[in-house]
């Protein structure tokens, strides 16, 4: 078990539920970034079998293995998918120099109707300015029930978020997050290391819950994303359902949303 100081806070978990991602800038030490970059550029990163225990995938000297064994990265992993998650797959995403067209929008899975969720890490081992990409994500898209590239005819959304970052930035997303690689107009190859993990334990209060009673959670869970349009209230219902699942409290509400619908006026007044 990783030290409690490395676990996510309740506010961070609520942000993950509302936005579908968390971003950690300048998070990985530079010497590991350089080693991981070299590993990716030389095609040396070892691939595990789907469903392997994460700890068994990379040997001790693997640079990406070291990245994901860092206590502060383990803290993110444990908070979201528990202590011993399964390695689903990884991919070294490469965008060649002078690639003028972005990848189509997609989610990385067929529709998964479970409340339980996988996470995907996007690790950027080198500086990624806008002219180099990086990966575009659509905050708040993670509850949308779509299959893979069903969303490919969309191009732009209000609030779309290009991950422009320094070396060592790590982003973790819910598996339902819509995303696409962006054009690389530079002369350098762009690399991004993506890792998907599956939980093996019930995702119930796995983070540092010291701040669970903080008043800010309702505000976070009520955030709007401008591209939602008229659907924002439906998305708040989706968040309440996931938050109830994560905290183990089926009566939780951010106001009078689900609790109003759960009020069943079935009492028959006594007639004398």
């Amino acid at each position, binding site marked *: 078990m990783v030290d409690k100081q490395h676990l996510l806070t309740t506010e961070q978990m609520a942000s993950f539920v509302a936005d579908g991602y968390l971003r950690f800038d300048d998070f990985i030490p530079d010497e590991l970034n350089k080693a991981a970059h070299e590993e990716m550029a030389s095609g040396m990163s070892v691939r595990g079998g789907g469903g392997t225990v994460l700890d068994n995938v990379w040997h001790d000297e693997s640079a990406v293995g070291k990245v994901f064994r860092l206590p502060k990265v383990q803290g993110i992993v444990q908070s979201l998918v528990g202590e011993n998650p399964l390695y689903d797959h990884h991919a070294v995403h490469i965008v060649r120099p002078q690639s*003028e*067209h*972005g*990848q*189509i*929008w997609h989610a990385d899975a067929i529709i998964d109707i479970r409340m339980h969720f996988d996470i995907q890490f996007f690790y950027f081992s080198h500086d990624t300015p806008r002219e180099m990409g990086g990966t*575009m994500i659509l905050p708040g898209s993670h*509850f*949308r*029930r*779509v299959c893979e590239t*069903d*969303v490919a*005819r*969309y*191009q*732009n*959304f*209000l609030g*779309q978020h*290009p991950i422009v970052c320094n070396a060592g930035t790590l982003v973790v997303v819910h598996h339902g997050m819509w995303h*696409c690689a*962006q*054009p690389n107009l530079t002369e350098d190859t762009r690399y991004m290391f993506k890792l998907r993990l599956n939980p093996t334990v019930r995702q119930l209060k796995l983070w540092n819950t010291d701040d669970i009673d903080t008043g800010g959670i309702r505000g976070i869970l009520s955030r709007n994303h*401008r*591209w*939602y*349009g*008229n*659907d924002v209230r*439906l*998305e708040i*219902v*989706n968040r309440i359902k996931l938050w109830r699942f994560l905290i183990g409290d089926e009566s939780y509400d951010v106001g009078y949303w689900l609790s109003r619908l759960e009020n069943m006026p079935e009492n028959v007044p006594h007639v004398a």
Partner: protein
Amino acid sequence: MAELRQQLLVLHLHTPDLNSHVVAWAMYDGTGQKRYTTGDSETPPYNSVVEAMQDGWRVIQFPQQFPAYPGMEYNTSYLRFEYILEKLEEI
């Protein structure tokens, strides 16, 4: 006689009202002059479908509206208020 090719503009709106604001957009160019791509702009080309119509775009598809399937009332997936507009360009 000049040959014409279609330009398509896809606008997704906040509500079904054609005056409501654009939340997502895409363009497809049938003249072969330009290839639009994901993430290529941060602001929509028009604020509403009506504003695009005032600039000469012709609406060729309205989104149909259906009640939610039983049990799917709170599910979200695609953007629901999708209008497709065209312009014809000489090549």
